């Protein structure tokens, strides 16, 4: 076990963890965040996605020891029901989910996309979200939500 100083959603956190612990479990069990979800532990589904140092990363395969001082943003760091981020608001307006278990990953991947490319084409959105799995099949709504959030015509 070792102490790690993390910067999560703008706040500093010190956690005591085995250095190999994937960031996902630290965020969920130590920082008590519910946004990032366990889906596969293999970086295959995207449910655990967070933004680290501006990039969408799979927290299920990111050892906490490699995070260092890089800022980590989770779904909670974007906004709340009372004060949603434009992406969250767009997902609400498009009713772009069913069970919602994967939605953390889609919103966080979309956030990284829009930060890098504010007006993506449909093909760019689909490509950027190709690594995220949704079993309920809400893709067409997700596409509309991301376009809406980017200020493009839906």
């Amino acid at each position: 076990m070792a102490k790690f100083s993390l910067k999560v959603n703008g706040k500093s956190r010190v956690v005591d963890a085995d250095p190999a612990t994937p960031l996902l479990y630290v965020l969920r069990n130590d920082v008590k965040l519910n946004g990032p979800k366990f889906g596969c532990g293999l970086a295959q589904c995207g449910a655990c996605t967070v933004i680290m140092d501006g990039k969408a990363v799979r927290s299920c395969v990111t050892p906490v020891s490699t995070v260092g001082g890089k800022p980590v943003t989770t779904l909670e760091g974007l906004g709340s029901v009372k004060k949603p981020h434009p992406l969250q608001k767009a997902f609400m307006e498009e009713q772009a989910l069913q069970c919602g278990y994967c939605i953390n990953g889609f919103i966080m991947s979309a956030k990284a996309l829009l930060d890098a490319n504010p007006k993506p084409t449909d093909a760019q959105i689909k490509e950027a979200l190709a690594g995220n799995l949704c079993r309920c099949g809400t893709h067409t709504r997700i596409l509309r939500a991301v376009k809406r959030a980017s200020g493009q015509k839906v």
Partner: protein
Amino acid sequence: MKTFELSRRELLKAGGALIVSFKLFPALDLFAAESQTAGMPDPTQLDSWIAVAQDGTVTVFTSKVELGTGIKTALAQIAAEELDVPLAKINVDMGDTDKTIDQATTSGSRTIERAGPQIRQAAAAARKELLRLASQRLGAPAENLTVKDGVVSVAGNPSKRVSYAQLVGGKRFNVTIDAEGRLGEMKLARDVKPKDPSEYQTVGKSIARVDVPPKTTGEAVYVHDVRIPGMLHGRVVRPPVVNTAPASIDESSVKDVPGLVKIVREGNFLGVVAKTEWAAIQAAEALKVTWNKPETKLPANREDLDNYLTSNKSFTTLKQVEKGDPAAALGKATKRYEAVFRWPFQLHGMIGPSCAVADVRGNKATIWSGCQGPFRTRASVSGLLKIPEENVRVIYHEASGSYGRLSNDDGAEDAALLSRAVGAPVRVQWMRQDEHGWEPKGPAQLQKLRAGVDAEGKIVAWEFIDYSLPWTVASATTLLASEQIGLKAKIPGQGNGNQGGGEIYAFDNIKVVAEEIPWMKPEPIPLRTSNLRAPGQLSRCFASEMLLNEIAADLGVDPIELRLRYLAADKRAADALKAVAEKSQWQKRRQPSENSSAAIAKGRGVAMTRRAGGYTAAVADVEVERATGKVAVKRITLSHDCGLVVNPDGVKNQVEGNIVQGVSRALLEEVTFDANGVTSLDWETYPILRFPDVPELDIVLIDRRDVAPLGAGELSTVPIPAAIAHAIFDATGARLREVPFAPKRVLAAIKATKPA
């Protein structure tokens, strides 16, 4: 830390901070009189179904659970409609076995059809009682009263008014209602007349789902997010096949895992408990176990499986229709058609694997679960721990979408065994390979079809036999941990359904049956089976609609025209087909219709079905790369009739998801296995549809105000594989007989096509 263990009475006193998201309602102190005995409330008491708080908020209690399909909102709409209360004032409290009445497991797309009327009648009974009270209070006959937004007033004299809250807020109704029958069949308050659908204002509107906002922000509390003080973390260690015993366990292999609390073995059940989740994961991974290797007589490949399905005697025959004498008619037919179709084992494929939290103390247990049937989980945990059912409380939280998988709550049993072993609350989550390997899968199937056409081109004989594995895991069988500690299922399972074999067509001689082939013996089996969304029907629809389309092609008749000849007596079926033809701008065609030899062959296909009273028809547009056999589904157009539509956008969301899942199952999905177990244990070896391959969707909802509302959770996924197969046939002439339509298989089918 909010407590997760509020009783119904406590909830009503304290307000529903947890279950009632983002709303608090004032204390209902008069509920202090309520019995404190745990267990299911009395269905003949109106108070068991509906409560009005002092601020006028109405809580509806239901054992049905939100699985991501939107029923929480739809049921709230139904209650709001009958009560004339704004939707924002309705709370729906779901799936707590101490607070709700067992209305049956949430499955089979049956919530709106069956629980909907129960809630409608309970709400109508509440409204009737409220009007009776208002009549006394206002000194006016009930028939002169009107209700708006939970306020009763005298018609023509709006100053004479009283609110629901003033009438019963915080108090009990103390009204007995009629409750006849059980579960989904229960009929409530039959003497009370609900509103006529022509008066509906809330039902029928696309109201935004109440569960959506917190799911976009991380504020929703899924079962995976439940944290109980003192909670430990567990993981299971499964053998490659059930029911195998650990021959030896090397405990020294995990002695260095920090925070390991206990290695738990009961019978053949094996798991670990640790202080942290990561420690539990590491321990489960590192634990060296040698499993006994009993000889399995399991079919080790598809050919063996087909032999197994067709050479073993069925334990039950599910008859869908038997009319006339198909065998004799076949004998006299001018043209005969025969085909065999195959369907693989497929996964429910929850994105979030099974998860539950259990707190077992002495002879009592509390289970936090994302299951589809809280009362079913209560019964299984009771049987597993050998404690009375009323000592088990199951509290529902949403889980990952389950599509039938969580009818059978394996995770709850695992958590219960581990919690009992350590005397503390334990959270268990399956790892990805546990879920892929051990979820009870959609059963493999094989169909044999024969059809005959007379000299006038009329289909005079239709014989459809489905050979299916049953659900080895069902309500009357045992779950995984129970099996492992030695509890045995007494029955071979439950049938995989029999709809979708062509029974909607008025052929003079027709037989559609399903033979259920036992899959219990010989144990051990690595492939458990259960109900997967629209059980068995995608497969049957693929077989029957594909053969029908091929007959149409052979007769030189447009496939929609051919169908309509046999649907004259079923207007809703014909309407659904005509609606999709119109929406897709279907042009009459002789098939295969693609004549060019272009590298990319384009085609379109059609299929339809009826399921549980609903109708749907789909047109698929595909492109097939001739050289590789790669299929791209470009567009699905689909018509959908599930009776009166409660929430159009909610239904549309369901339909879209059903289509995408259907495309995925048709193009990609197949569980692979050998004699030693399942070999597709992750998303690489069992891929599902990804974003770039999702087709354009075009949906027509047929809203029938004269037909009672039906579910929308299954119907529209059924015709998708059949429509895609037909489109591939249209494009290339390839006759697909087996799912998935992988490039290799499609290419082989193209090569087998003889030039016309």
